[in-house]
């Protein structure tokens, strides 16, 4: 018997991963949640049939979404993480002892519960005493915050489904308002390769650039995401992602990483020409 998980990356392209067995399958109020045991990628989490993470490559995503802003902003004390129900981003953040407070806003409690049970590799850190979880809509939560955070990380799913509101101009504008005067916003910024993803990337960039004076994107390589070429957004009120990158401070923090390093930090912001054009046309 062969059991495969398949995800269409476009109407004409799909990725299939051979499944050993299905560990979990539930329908929450918001989405269908599945966790598979696979041979190649370890455990795999999918939401509404879209692959969210695999145990094999999640380190790339979670290191890049966290350490890039942490190596720029000199004194992050209070962080807001939106989405991130799998806990991977939290796991990286709690490695910084000087972070005092992390608010995590996830709309779907069932995702967190499922990950706690089946994906301790990412979810174990959620119980850290600095982490405060709010099960509510991210857009609603951020609307009520004023100059409260040093760093906001939007670890969202896709610009359709429950995460839709996290790609809108009103959301990024409210994030701007929720950040302190030197705050940084990092967001999941989609991919430039396939045309539908590229449109989402353009729209996100347009909406962020409308709210933030500094709006850059940086790339990372995610084997299980469509095309493998994926981006985060770096939006900031004050700090420049390369000029204000403090290499010494990062090295002294003594955090071991599998993907991220100081040279790659800078390199990630040097993007291909077709992506530059795409963003210029956004």
């Amino acid at each position, binding site marked *: 018997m062969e059991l495969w998980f398949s995800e269409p990356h476009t109407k004409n392209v799909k990725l299939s991963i051979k499944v050993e067995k299905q560990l979990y399958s539930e329908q929450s109020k918001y989405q269908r949640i599945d966790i598979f045991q696979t041979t190649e990628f370890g455990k795999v989490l999918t939401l509404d049939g879209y692959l969210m993470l695999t145990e094999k490559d999640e380190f790339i995503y979670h290191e890049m979404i966290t350490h890039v802003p942490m190596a720029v902003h000199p004194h992050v004390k209070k962080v807001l993480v939106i989405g991130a129900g799998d806990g991977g981003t939290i796991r990286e953040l709690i490695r910084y002892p000087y972070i005092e407070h992390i608010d995590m806003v996830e709309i779907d409690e069932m995702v967190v519960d499922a990950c706690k049970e089946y994906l301790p590799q990412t979810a174990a850190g959620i119980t850290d005493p600095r982490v405060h979880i709010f099960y509510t809509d991210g*857009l*609603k939560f*951020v*609307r009520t915050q004023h100059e409260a955070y040093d760093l906001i990380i939007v670890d969202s799913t896709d610009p359709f489904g429950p995460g839709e*509101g996290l790609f*809108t101009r*009103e959301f990024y504008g409210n994030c701007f308002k929720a950040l302190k005067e030197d705050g940084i916003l990092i967001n999941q910024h989609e991919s430039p390769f396939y045309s539908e993803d590229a449109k989402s990337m353009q729209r996100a960039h347009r909406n962020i650039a*409308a709210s933030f004076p500094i709006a850059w994107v940086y790339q990372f390589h995610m084997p299980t995401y469509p095309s493998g070429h994926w981006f985060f957004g770096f939006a900031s009120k004050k700090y420049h992602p390369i000029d204000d990158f403090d290499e010494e401070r990062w090295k002294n923090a003594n955090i071991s990483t599998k993907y991220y390093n100081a040279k790659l930090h800078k390199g990630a912001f040097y993007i291909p020409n077709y992506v530059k054009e795409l963003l210029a046309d956004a």
Partner: protein
Amino acid sequence: MKKLSQADTPLHAALEDHKLERMAHFDVPGHKGGRGNKELKYFLGEDTLKIDVNSMKPLDNLCHPVSVIKDAQQLAAEAFGAKEAFFIVNGTTAAVQAMIMATCKAGDKVIMPRNVHRSAINALVVCGAIPVYVNPGTNKKLGIPLGMTLADVKHAMEKHPDAKAIMVNNPTYYGICSDLKQIVSLAHANGMKVLVDEAHGTHFYFGENMPISAMAAGADMAAVSMHKTGGSLTQSSLLLCGQEVNTDYVRQIINLTQTTSGSYLLMVSLDLARKNLSLNGKEMFRKTVAFAEYAREEINKLGGYYAFSKELEDGDAVYAFDTTKLSIHTRDIGLAGIEVYDLLRDDYSIQIEFGDIGNILAIVSAGDRNLEIERLISALSEIKRLYSKDPTGMFDHEYINPQVVMPPQKAFYANKISKEIYKSEGYICGEFVMCYPPGIPILAPGELITKEILNYIAYAKEKGCVLTGTQDMEIAHIQVVSDKM
């Protein structure tokens, strides 16, 4: 034959049967199930084009219904508590016009609030009836027209005892209702018919704790825009008739102007929407009200905006407020409603129903999700943060009492000349000028053009309102009756 229930959809069932028939068509429409227009078939879907058919024996005929359309209309009548219901496929405009034309002849008077939809005044142009306007009054702070007070209605009836009918908005675009039940008693005591524009009131028939519906209040006729809050396709509508109405005459009147090629897509959407409302309406509108109430509460917390509701009720000009309507006053953040409307669409990809000088209106329905409601609230929060300014000097008054100096039909068909709009003061208007939406005329044929009205038009233009109605597409010139007053 078994007795039909609200769970049945006779027209829908007949079309389902028709799809399976594999009939050879040598009748119109010429696209023949889409084979003759492949791009259209691809765009709308083959199933849609297969039921875009002409009337035929098993599918009945809208002009003279004897089988499945008749049954579907009967079920609709039952659902709405009417003696008879007519499927209307020319928009609620056609239903409003049928009400007036079935009640008034040339020279007859009809009492109506001035904030009626243009379709009502259009009907006067067509049939030659004469309007007796009741000033709906204005909420000064919000700048919105209200309902009619009983005292004003009484006064109009005493002054014009020969009026044939009174027309009532139930509710207005903004969700405001007059005391319909009392108006019905007054009108019937004076031998007048009551015609109700319920373009925005479909839900009154199915929701709980809603303002009273026209049929429940004993009105004679009501035009119900099923497509607005009832879930049918755009342009489909119902004309409801009460017990005392000669419905065979009404059918003749409808057939004077309605198409003889009634769209089955529109008609079947009425049939299915009626079933859905009958079976699920309570829950649908409970959800709608919950969304609207939540949004009001959150928007009012933002400060600056005023999402108004039942607190406006005063037992008279605002006899009842329809809580499904999400109307928001924007003037206190220094922005005209139309400016907020434009920002929402252009910058935030949020399309709302309309913006006028001082307010915006968002239509909320059971089809919404929390997500969209949160987006709207957050975008309003951002608009306030980024664009709010000092509101002094903004226009704060919308209702201008019109001076009707000539019957609309006479003015419309009079010898006319074209004048530059800002040089037309003192002339009698020969056409319509309105903001669309909401489509309520600023000027109608037969009304005196005054300085005040011209100022209002200039302000609405400056703020970006879409003005319509005149022959001149630029609204720079206006047709006036040649003889100045």
